[in-house]
């Protein structure tokens, strides 16, 4: 594995988006992963529609009543991949733009599918495996506890104590070997996370969190998606 890796340098990551006042982080995490997978399979970076997921994806867990993707009230990236697999794919952002509300009806048009899922996987809670899957399969959808993110401005976040209960969906796009941690007098490796709170949050919309001990649950809910090339009909 390379010591440093960043999918942004390779053109696999779209610009930072803004979910607004809507709990649709899961849809941004899912589209980000599929955008990366689509880039790997086609060489083209296409911004995909979160609004399609917000409006149309109500995928439920068959084993638990009421556990369904539900727009601004939350969802799950693996369920979004499941929906995308069943629906045939996602439209482009420009064809089905984001509104930040879930009060509209589903306007999915199959003839405008721009990217499709071939399969998806969950990745074991092992940082080397996460890094290997990131490098091999593109940006990964991850869950994280966002408590420290409300006040985050920059630097490598490495809280002494952080709940591992994930409540926010984000996109893992890379890692670095050495983010300097002056207080601890050593270089700390970190993950690079793309968030969906706009560019005026964090480090131009990105968050750095240290690697090594499943901080804030970042290693425990990681999923990878593979894309097949779809052409508009």
């Amino acid at each position: 594995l390379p010591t440093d890796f960043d999918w942004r340098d390779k053109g696999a990551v779209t610009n930072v988006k803004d979910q607004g006042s809507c709990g649709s982080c899961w849809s941004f995490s899912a589209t980000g992963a599929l955008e990366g997978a689509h880039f790997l399979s086609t060489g083209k970076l296409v911004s995909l529609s979160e609004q399609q997921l917000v409006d149309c994806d109500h995928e439920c867990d068959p084993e638990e009543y009421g556990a369904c993707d539900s727009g601004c009230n939350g969802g799950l990236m693996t369920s979004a991949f499941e929906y995308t697999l069943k629906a045939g794919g996602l439209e482009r952002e420009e064809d089905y733009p984001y509104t930040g509300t879930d009060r509209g009806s589903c306007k999915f048009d199959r003839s405008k599918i721009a990217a499709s899922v071939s399969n998806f996987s969950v990745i074991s809670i092992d940082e080397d495996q996460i890094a290997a899957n990131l490098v091999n399969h593109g940006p990964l959808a991850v869950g994280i506890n966002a408590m420290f993110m409300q006040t985050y401005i920059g630097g490598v976040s490495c809280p002494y104590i952080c709940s591992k209960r994930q409540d926010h969906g984000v996109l893992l796009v890379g890692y670095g070997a050495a983010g300097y941690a002056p207080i601890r007098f050593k270089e700390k490796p970190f993950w690079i996370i793309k968030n969906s709170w706009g560019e005026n949050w964090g480090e131009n919309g990105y968050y750095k969190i240290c690697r090594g001990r499943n901080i804030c649950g970042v290693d425990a809910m990681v999923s990878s998606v593979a894309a097949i090339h779809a052409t508009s009909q």
Partner: protein
Amino acid sequence: ATVSPDEVEDPLIRQVVPDAEDHLLNAEHHFTTFKASFGKNYATQEEHDYRFKVFKANLRRARKHQMMDPTAVHGVTKFSDLTPREFRRQYLGLKRLRLPADAHEAPILPTND
């Protein structure tokens, strides 16, 4: 005791705390800057006062986060006028992971070379 001007400007004594640091304790100053930076307007004086109260609580939280997370920088963000509950409700939305039938665990990849 008296202090001569020469002593005040002694080149061997350097002020290391910027004067602007005084503002750190000035929540009103921070709130005014916050409103200007993020284009925040509140409909009523009551709402404004309530948000100011929340903002002050978040300044304290940011200071606490800074102590607990010293390698990052914590401070005023666009969410500084939201309570933790409002923040969770409006900006977070990840449900608990349950594996769908089609999901499978990724094969273990080699990580040497």
